[in-house]
């Protein structure tokens, strides 16, 4: 069930309507039922996988929590009896126990993810190597199911386990509630990967209907739809896929893309003190527009290089594209209308430019800490309504959907 579909909108209405009608105690139960319904509607065959991850993670969390608690109690009770060395020894034993417990759960969860997502990728590569070596052997290619959001919920489960291992918080005592945390339907398709201590309590608490919050939520959804259906889907002919790393797909080009991004992200973190020294030595003012502008250009450049790997059909193709970018000077593609041949006409371009400007203005306002929805809410009623209805009309008319204009699926769907 795609987010940009009538089915999903209807589903969302039922979920929200039901949530506010439900008694406070049952609100989280309703969300759990809806989340699993969403999952079942997508593919009932894969529900066993998420149940497996939920149960394994829940049990492991409880074991880790118990070890943490026992350790605390034992140390507290024997505070005066135990020597420093004995305490150390006891802690070390517990850490080993916890490590093995955590390792087993990670192996089970990650093993399942790797097997379902990458078995065929590795099998293909092994077969290629075997073939090059003229060996009459072949690893079978399996017809595997890919559960919805398996990467999201697996990584979320691992995050939870690592936090419990580090004793950041107590493990969840309620399996059903924990199942909701891992399967919450708006997150399972698109993420983001949430931390337990940030998300879980929001799901378990009973929220009353608040007009302002619901209205703001509806506005946020409308804005999201506008960005997706008017801008992103219109740009789809230009941008086949914008993905990050091997997590996104099983192909060597994504490995290269992942390495490229990984090197820059970790490099920038590790070298931060060095940069700070250079900035201080060169007396660069980092509080002005020009510095921000430089940062934007630098990041765009580095990201664009990485995108060659995601867009190219192979690593070699990506390298060729990079070479051409720097050796073939052809800025005229921007002025000779040749981009109209890529599936976008003049009228669509006007819509894109107009919406791009709106996006830019909104972006600048957000940068400056202006809360747009709050600002709109301050306006007179009729003006507010005009803005909302105008936005809805723009979405309905200019959105890319319907017959022959199928909205492209979200890139993170099925990851």
């Amino acid at each position: 069930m795609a987010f940009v579909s009538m089915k999903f909108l209807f589903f969302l209405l039922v979920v929200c309507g039901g949530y506010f009608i439900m008694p406070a105690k049952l609100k989280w139960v309703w969300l759990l039922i809806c989340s699993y319904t969403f999952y079942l509607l997508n593919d009932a065959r894969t529900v066993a996988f998420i149940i497996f991850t939920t149960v394994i993670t829940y049990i492991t969390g409880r074991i880790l929590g118990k070890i943490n608690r026992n350790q605390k109690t034992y140390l507290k009770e024997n505070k005066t009896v135990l020597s420093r060395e004995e305490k150390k020894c006891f802690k070390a034993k517990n850490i080993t126990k916890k490590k093995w417990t955590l390792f087993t759960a990670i192996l089970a969860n990650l093993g399942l993810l790797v097997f379902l997502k990458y078995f065929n990728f590795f099998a293909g590569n092994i077969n290629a190597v075997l073939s090059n070596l003229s060996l009459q052997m072949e690893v079978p290619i399996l017809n595997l199911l890919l559960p919805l959001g398996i990467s999201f919920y697996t990584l979320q489960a691992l995050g939870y386990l690592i936090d419990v291992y580090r004793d950041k918080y107590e493990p969840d005592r309620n399996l059903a509630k924990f199942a909701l945390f891992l399967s919450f339907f708006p997150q399972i398709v698109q993420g983001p990967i949430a931390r337990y201590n940030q998300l879980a309590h929001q799901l378990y608490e009973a929220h009353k209907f608040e007009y302002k919050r619901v209205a703001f939520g509806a506005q946020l959804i409308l804005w999201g739809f506008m960005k997706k259906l008017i801008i992103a889907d219109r740009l789809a002919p230009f941008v086949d896929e914008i993905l990050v790393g091997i997590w996104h797909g099983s192909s060597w080009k994504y490995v290269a893309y992942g390495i490229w991004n990984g090197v820059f992200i970790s490099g920038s973190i590790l070298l931060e003190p060095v940069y700070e020294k250079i900035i201080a030595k060169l007396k660069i003012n980092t509080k002005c527009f020009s510095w921000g502008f430089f940062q934007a250009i630098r990041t765009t450049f580095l990201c664009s290089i990485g995108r060659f790997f995601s867009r190219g059909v192979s690593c070699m193709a990506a390298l060729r594209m990079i070479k051409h970018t720097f050796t073939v000077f052809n800025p005229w593609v921007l002025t000779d209308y040749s981009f109209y041949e890529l599936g976008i006409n003049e009228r669509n371009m006007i819509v894109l430019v107009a919406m791009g400007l709106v996006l830019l203005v909104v972006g600048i306002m957000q940068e400056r800490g202006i809360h747009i929805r709050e600002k709109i809410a301050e306006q007179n009623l009729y003006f507010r309504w005009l803005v909302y209805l105008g936005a809805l009309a723009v979405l309905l008319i200019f959105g890319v959907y319907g017959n022959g204009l199928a909205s492209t699926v979200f890139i993170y769907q099925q990851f």
Partner: protein
Amino acid sequence: MKKKQILQFIIFMTLGLVMVYTLFYLFEKNENDLAARSWNGFYSEEENTIDGIIVGTSMATWAWVAPLAWHERGVRLYSLSTDEQPMAATIGVIEEARKTQNLQVIIIDVHGIRTSARLRTVNKMRNLTDSMHYSINQIRTVNRIVKYSKDYEAIYGDTIPEEKRSKLIEPSDFSNYLGFLNYHARWESGLSESDFTKESPSIKGAYTSRKKLFRTEKLEPPDIPKEANLEPLFQEVIQEVIDYGKENQLNMVFVELPSSLPEEEYIQMNAALQMAEDADFPTINFNSDTISNELSIDYATDLSNKTHVNSRGAVKITSYLTKYVCEHYGLDNEPESKDSTSWDQSWEDYKAFFEQGWEMSIESVLSDWQK
């Protein structure tokens, strides 16, 4: 939520719905589309001024000249037929017409159940359903066609050619019901004032494609077999129409318009006509020797192609059917209505259109059989 907020919410939602409905209305099927224009013409007629309708595929559209029926007997009878209109949509079409008109006769062409017209692609359904106004009946009509298509695919799925598979009706596609989803992007091809006006055809109730109506294909009269046989799925479709007619006490006439098709397709249509006769509905087979000779249908000059009459054939069919419905249902000598001017004008325009196309008078075409 305070009372004031509830009130504001209701007003806002109402305004939103009005706006959305206006957009749906503005971004309907392109006005240049023949089916849409034909339906617009029908919708623009005053209530209770139309005497009857003819329902079928494009064969019925080509074969019916409403201005001639008006001119000859004062009969106002519209063709509500679209290109490859599914037979399963017949009840929906009749229901839609009955919302505003007191139909005294309904003529149904049975060509829709023959082998070569059974498969329904999504565009053929939308030809009709996107031309209809949004209503419960439009939804029901879509549902009927969707059900038929599902049943058809379940039985004859293996015979569907590969190139047609992507064009089949997707039952869960919401745009089956909401034309706006298909046409909201019409702005891409440029919009002008005419795109937002609901134009009726200048010649009401008649097909006016010069390219198609003023040509002939020298065809042989078909060999009509005696046998009658129709597969259960299509029997069901016909039976539903018959039951609906009985239930609502409608004057329905089942016809088989002139065509030149393979023998097996006439076996299927014979069965459909037989079913209608068994249910005490009158039938007219224009391919039978009796009527064909009476009407002097010449397969070498009166057909545009194997499945459609040209305008020469159309005036003959119209004249015959007009006479038939007047004699059997007392439709002629209707009192003059307010819209008679537009009908008179349509007749003048059609006459000129016909005579310019063939360089002969309509009367000369009709003189033989009218004597």
